[in-house]
């Protein structure tokens, strides 16, 4: 028989304003097993925890029920408090009377009644709890970073600097990501390549970092501290060990019609290519869809000119299996497809471009060698119009509901840079709001207006019409002036919304990390655990978690690294004791449970059992508690009820059902 203490938290007025906490405590006194019940202002506070310790001592408690906020919030707190007070931490159950009661109900009577029932269910459960001891599992001292943009690079460098091995898996032929495509960065107007390239080189040179470019994560299994990951290294057709990076092959390659991904399709590249001059590794790849040799068997020019003999047309995709203690997702973003926004004529005119395309046009290594030119006729534009919020802040199923966060600042940057370099060019910016929270951000935007004379117009653009003379008419509105505005422009730049890289959907499934309705990875807690995913051992870095600029990305990358370092620094992890176990007297050995176990945690042994005096050898299911994650799939599959789950046993759940339905 348990001796249960019930503690009802007021949570200031969060609970007490809607739930009559005293009545809840009083009601619990008549519940089976309850010997003590009390209420208190803040149970999670130090004095609240002290109260628990005192009650345990005075009333010889064996189990605790805390009626408070969600167990996701403070279950760990109360378990620790119980342990301190001398009770097994798994003898604690939380009745969630805040998120599930006081915060969603207004009627005090109703809320109080519901709180009593929730508490009753928790009491019924604790009556059947038994002490659990957590196990230990070792930690593989290596981290995987998925994505080699600035987020992945920074995370990898920080982890490696702490002395742990890191692998970076990057989908494209080079690390560098979106930042490598940028020309200048706000609000300091640093040259993007100048600050990124050294970090890329550091990564390549770091003895603790292994870079797998042109590679993808194929499969993930395991759990925190013990992940096993299959990495697919796509065939590069170039031997990285031999290649000297001389670039002759690219020069000689006769197939030069492919669109350069790096230049957003604004220029061409050869079939054998490195995406950009500073690529890391500086080893080209052969695009099999473009290569004449791979398509027709003829050509082979690159092989002939390669002095290092690095070309290998027979290379195949390769799967590498590696083990990791922690995984960081840093898959970044892409610009949305603009098909839903044809009113801006992006598909109808070459002179309507996205801001990322403008970055390439402004960049000295870009398609126009850094000269501001129209893509249609190479002429220098005289009137440029920027349109903000294209596809952001949309509630119409065409675009994204969120603010892409970086557009206001990069548009101010673009406007300023253009006005600086080409003072005779008129620049107008249509905006809905200018959002500039960030250090020196608003000052930066004001400089664009005040010092550089950028014409900011509050209002959205309705349509861009290409005119017979090759110009573009921008039909907008100036809401402050109360007039429709028509601007004849040579170039229109769209601040297209950003979205998580498409690969994240599948990756989230592989990692069992959850994603939100916009495909951003969900953090474990939006405020308190922003760089951890809800899946232990999986961390988030950069835009894959939500829109952010470079400084924020780098801070988050460092934070994720710190979390990884904290994890890898441990030699072993405490495992969840809520694992499955099978009753050897009831087990039929039928293998149904092993069929549904996602972790391969169930094996079978021929074991001699003593079933009420009958000794016989039986085939019995055995659970490896280091592998078991406690999902419970096996328990339902088991026809005889031999398989049960610690912490969520059949009897406990049924007791809760009974208590709720009573």
């Amino acid at each position, binding site marked *: 028989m348990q001796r249960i203490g019930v503690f009802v938290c007021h949570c200031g007025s969060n609970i007490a304003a809607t739930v009559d906490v005293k009545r809840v405590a009083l009601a619990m006194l008549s519940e089976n097993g309850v010997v003590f019940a009390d209420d208190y202002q803040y149970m999670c506070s130090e004095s609240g925890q002290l109260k628990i310790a005192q009650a345990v001592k005075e009333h010889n408690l064996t189990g605790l029920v805390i009626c408070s906020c969600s167990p996701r919030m403070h279950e760990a707190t109360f378990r620790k408090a119980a342990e301190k007070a001398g009770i097994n931490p798994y003898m604690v159950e939380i009745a969630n009377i805040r998120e599930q009661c006081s915060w969603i109900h207004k009627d005090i009577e109703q809320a109080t009644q519901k709180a009593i029932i929730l508490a009753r269910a928790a009491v019924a459960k604790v009556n059947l709890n038994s002490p659990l001891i957590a196990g230990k599992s070792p930690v593989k001292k290596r981290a995987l970073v998925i994505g080699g943009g600035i987020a992945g690079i920074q995370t990898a460098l920080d982890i490696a600097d702490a002395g742990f091995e890191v692998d970076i898996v990057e989908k494209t032929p080079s690390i560098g990501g979106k930042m490598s495509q940028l020309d200048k960065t706000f609000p300091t107007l640093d040259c993007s390549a100048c600050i990124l390239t050294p970090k890329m080189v550091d990564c390549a040179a770091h003895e603790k970092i292994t870079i797998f470019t042109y590679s993808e994560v194929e499969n993930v299994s395991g759990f925190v501290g013990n992940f096993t990951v299959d990495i697919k290294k796509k065939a590069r057709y170039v031997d990285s060990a031999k290649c000297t990076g001389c670039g002759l092959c690219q020069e000689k390659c006769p197939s030069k019609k492919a669109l350069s991904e790096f230049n957003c399709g604004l220029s061409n590249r050869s079939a054998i290519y490195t995406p950009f001059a500073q690529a890391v590794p500086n080893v080209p790849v052969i695009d099999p869809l473009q290569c004449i040799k791979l398509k027709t068997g003829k050509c082979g020019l690159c092989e002939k000119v390669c002095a290092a003999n690095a070309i290998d047309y027979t290379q195949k995709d390769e799967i590498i299996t590696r083990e990791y203690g922690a995984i960081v997702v840093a898959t970044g973003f892409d610009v949305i497809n603009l098909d839903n926004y044809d009113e801006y004529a992006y598909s109808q005119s070459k002179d309507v471009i996205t801001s990322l395309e403008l970055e390439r046009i402004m960049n000295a290594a870009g398609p126009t060698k850094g000269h501001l030119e129209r893509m249609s006729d190479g002429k220098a534009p005289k009137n440029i119009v920027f349109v903000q919020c294209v596809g952001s802040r949309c509630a119409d199923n065409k675009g994204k509901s969120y603010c892409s966060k970086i557009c206001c600042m990069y548009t101010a940057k673009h406007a300023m840079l253009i006005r600086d370099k080409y003072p005779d060019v008129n620049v107008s910016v249509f905006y809905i709001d200018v959002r500039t929270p960030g250090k020196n951000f608003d000052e930066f935007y004001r400089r664009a207006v005040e010092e550089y004379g950028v014409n900011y117009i509050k209002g959205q653009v309705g349509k861009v019409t290409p005119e017979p003379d090759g110009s573009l008419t921008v039909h907008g509105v100036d809401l402050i002036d109360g007039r429709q505005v028509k601007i004849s422009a040579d170039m229109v730049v769209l601040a297209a919304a950003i979205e998580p890289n498409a690969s994240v959907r599948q990756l989230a*499934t592989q990692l069992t990390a959850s994603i939100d309705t916009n495909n951003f990875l969900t953090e474990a807690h939006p405020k308190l655990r922003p760089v951890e995913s809800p899946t232990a051992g999986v961390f988030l870095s950069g835009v894959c978690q939500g829109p952010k600029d470079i400084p924020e990305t780098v801070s988050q990358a460092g934070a994720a690294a710190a979390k990884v370092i904290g994890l890898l620094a441990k030699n072993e992890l405490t495992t969840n004791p809520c694992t499955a176990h099978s009753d050897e007297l009831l087990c039929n050995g039928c293998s149904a449970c092993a069929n549904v176990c996602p972790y391969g945690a169930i094996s079978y042994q021929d074991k001699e059992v003593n079933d009420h005096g009958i000794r016989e050898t039986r085939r019995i299911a055995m659970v490896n508690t280091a592998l078991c994650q406690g999902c419970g799939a096996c*328990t*339902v599959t088991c026809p005889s009820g031999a398989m049960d*789950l610690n912490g969520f046993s059949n009897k406990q759940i049924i007791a809760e059902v009974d208590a709720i*339905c009573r």
Partner: protein
Amino acid sequence: MPMNSTESFAPKIVAFCCNWCSYAGADLAGSSRLAYPADVKIIKVPCSCRVNPMFILRAFEKGADGVIICGCHPGDCHYSTGNYYARRRMTLLFSMLEYIGIEKDRVRVEWVSAAEAVKFSETMNSFVLQIKNLGENVRLGDLRCKS
């Protein structure tokens, strides 16, 4: 069903929520103050695949008027595959309940992610309404109805 009896009838509704998605979704509904009727009482389970059909039958036997199971969206299960098994089990169980003449609207499975607070609250509101329209559960207490 006359309107007034629907109004005064407070159904007993048991909601099994998986720890990783739906329970978190319920928490978010709470912190977002998205109200749903107090008739819903949540039982936390690690995964929707932990829900044994016996729990559901048990709830009905003990007087529940509706049972809803919420889990991660298929493909997003914290344990990779749990909800796929749950989906098959519940599909068959619900079909059986309908087959033996239990109103199939008394049971529901809904996939609610940790981010879908609105969906959680809307789901619970609509489920409670659905159960109120059905009225009290009289059939599934004891199928044999022995005196």
